[in-house]
Structure formats: C-alpha cells, structure tokens
C-alpha cells in the first residue's frame, strides 16, 4: 500500500535534508500529522520566511534580513573598521560574536579551498575580500578552521595579501580548555609549543 501523496511528499522533502534518513523523515512527517497545536503551521511559515526574508550582506556576505543592503555589524558605527576577521561560514560569525571580545568587521568566504574536492579560489568570496582592502584596513585576522582545508585557505590568503601593507594574523591554536596532553596529536602539540607564552608572575 502506498502512503497518501501529501504525507509521502513531506517524507521525501525531509529525506533530502542532511543527516536525515528515510526512517527519521517518516517519523517527523507523522509527528507533524498528529500534532494539533501550531507546530506545523509555524514550521511552514518559518520555512517560507527563511528564503524570502534573508539575503547576503553586500560588504561581508554574512546572512542578513532581505530589506537590508548591509548587515547590522557592517552598519554599526561603533565597530572598528580597520580590522576584518575572515571566517568560513556565517555560523562562525555568531560563534565569534558570542565571545563579546571582538569589535571589528567580518568577511564570510562561504567555504574553504579543498584541492581534492575541487573547490577553488573562484568558488569563494576571495576577490570580494581583496576589494575591501582599499577601505583603510590595517589588519586581517584569518579565522578559518584549524583543519587542512582551513589552513590551506589561510595560507593562500596570506600569499595573496603578502604585497599589501595590512597586518595578516591567524587565530592561535593549541590545547583546548579541559583537554588532555597525552591525547593531543602531533600537529596541535607542536603548535602549542611554538605558540607558548610567558607565564605572568602574579
């Protein structure tokens, strides 16, 4: 027996999402079918608004509301316009904002260089970043992930920025808070050693 078309359609739509298999998809669909509160209408509304009411900031390419040309951060006069922090994805901006310790601007690349997957320079917002250097920028902070791809992207940007006057920095890396030295890999441990800091005598 086949499921009624509206149910099957929702199951198919769910299974196209990352991390959701056919079983989870049907569980979700039947849950929504059964609920009597506003879960289903609210979800439908949120889904429609997602694409309709968002766009990318013209300057930093972070996600913003569709009625804005530039995002709230780029628009904020209190932010330091001489520093740009380069990140892979919009979610990284929110992670850094949560620290409350950064007051400069951002630039979202929307991906990382991956030689094996064939993601190249032209697939990322790299030219747009280079174009922003004209605006009195003094420092670029490369905050791509500490992975092979993130490092390759940072190295590439470092090379492209080598001739300019801006200071190029990379986020420090080392041992995570609450970590365990004996489980650290060579790469992390070596960088933690290289980046060791003088202990303040209190």
């Amino acid at each position: 027996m086949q499921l009624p078309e509206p149910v099957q359609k929702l199951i198919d739509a769910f299974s196209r999402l990352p991390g959701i298999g056919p079983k989870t998809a049907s569980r979700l669909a039947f849950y929504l079918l059964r609920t009597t509160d506003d879960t289903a209408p609210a979800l439908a509304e949120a889904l429609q608004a997602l694409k309709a009411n968002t766009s990318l900031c013209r300057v930093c390419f972070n996600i913003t509301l569709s009625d804005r040309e530039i995002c709230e951060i780029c628009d904020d006069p209190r932010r330091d316009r001489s520093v740009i922090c380069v990140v892979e994805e919009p979610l990284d901006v929110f992670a850094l904002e949560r620290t409350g310790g950064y007051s400069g601007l951002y630039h979202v690349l929307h991906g990382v260089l991956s030689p094996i997957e064939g993601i190249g320079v032209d697939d990322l917002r790299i030219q747009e970043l280079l174009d922003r250097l004209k605006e009195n920028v003094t420092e670029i902070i490369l905050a791509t992930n500490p992975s092979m791809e993130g490092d390759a992207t940072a190295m590439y940007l470092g090379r492209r920025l080598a001739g300019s006057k801006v200071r190029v920095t990379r986020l420090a890396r080392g041992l995570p808070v609450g970590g365990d030295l004996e489980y650290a890999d060579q790469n992390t441990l070596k960088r933690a050693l290289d980046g060791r800091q003088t202990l303040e005598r209190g």
Partner: protein
Amino acid sequence: MPLRERTIRTPALVLRHREIGEADRLLVLYTEQLGKIHAIAKGVRKLKSRKAGHLEPFTHSTLQLAKGRDLMIITQAETLNAFLPLRENLAGVGHASYVIELIDRFTYENEENPRIFHLAIRTLERLQRAKDPLLVLRFYELRLLDLLGFRPELQQCGLCQAEIKAQDQYFSAERGGVLCPNCGRSTPGARPISMEALRYLRHLQRSNFQQASVARPRPEIHTEMEILMQHYLTYLLERNLNTPSFIRKIRHLDTTDHVPPAIEND
C-alpha cells in the same frame, strides 16, 4: 578481505572527509588491511575531540575500527605521521592532495592492496624532503599504474611492436603507450612526445626510487611529462582530476597575482 572480527586495528591513510550529523565526519580511508573503506568518526568536529587531529586528510594513523550497523566506526586513532612539513606550505598541500586523489579515484571499496598503501605512505615521506617534488609525483604515478595494471608500454610501439628508437615519438592513451612516428602520425588522438621526456619516463619506470631520483629534467621536460601523464590518467579515469588545477594556480602565485587559464587536459 572479509571481516570476521567485530573490531580491527589497522594502519590507514585518511583520504577525504565529509561532515554528517551534529559533530561527526564520514571519512574515506585507505587502510593497509581492508583497502579503501568508509568509516564514521563520531564527535570529531568538537574542539575537544581526542581523535580529530589524528584524522585530518593525508594523515597516516593507526586506527581501531568497530563494525557498525552499516559502516565502520572509528573508536581510536593515533597519528603515526602527520607529514607536518607538507602542511606548512601550499605546494606541499597540493602535492599531498594529488597523491590522495589518485588513490581515491583509482581504487574501489573493500579491495585491499597493501602495496598501494605503502607506495602512498612512502611517496608522502619522499615529498617531505624532496628537492624535486615533481619527480616524486611522476615516479608515484608510474608505480601506481603498475600496481593497478595500467602500466604504460614505453619500450615498443603499441601498434607495430617495433622497438622504440632514440627519436621523437607519439603517445596514445587509447593504445596504452608509445607509438613509433609512422604509426603515431596516422593514429587519431595520439600526441607527440619528445625523445627527452620519453627517456626520463622510461628511466622512472624501470628504476628504483634511489636511481630515479638522480634524474634532473629541465623545466620544459617536467611540464611535458606532467601534461602527458595527466592526459593518460584522465583518459583512464574518464574524468578530470581536481588537484592539478589547484597545483597550477599555486605555482603561478609566485610569479603573478593573476591566475592563468588551465591547461586543457584532453
């Protein structure tokens, strides 16, 4: 090799990864004992993961794998060699990625071949200290083709079987090797190959690495060999490779900020 035990411990080379679920990664590995396999590494996108650093692409690690419902699950990982010098510059990353990409494209899942595994590890080790990394890559391509059963014929004409003489020749990917000038001229798709490039390729094909590494081809000959080998590999794979264009862009970064047009590969 069919897997009877529930867990297995094997040296492995990490080929690629893809993010799945909340904080997991699906890895493509080339293992010494099982060949190419897919395996899940749980929680490795969390900063405190004890496995993450041991599972980056082109890391040589010892892995403890457990049989999951559909896929293998990585329960322990310990780096044997992270090839740190290769990670410190873009050319190194490009060359190592190329080694990985060829293995990934040319092998099928669950067909073990420890010789391919050891060749890849040795190649990455050689790249770390190579004065001429391109020579290491050409040697690797020819050895890999030997192990895969695609060894190009470089000694006699692929059509008339005549012994190849010391002069410019032709190469036909379709015929799997060199053609003499007579046969080459009339074979569609055959491309010219200079005597010098052919001599180096023959030298690499029949020497061990120590003998091979004394060769010092001129830059033009290097380019010719690179284009020829990539033409042959692309023909065998029936699709383009991703890393060569990355390597070319990096190479031109030294001389100019403009990215050159890609060399046509067909």
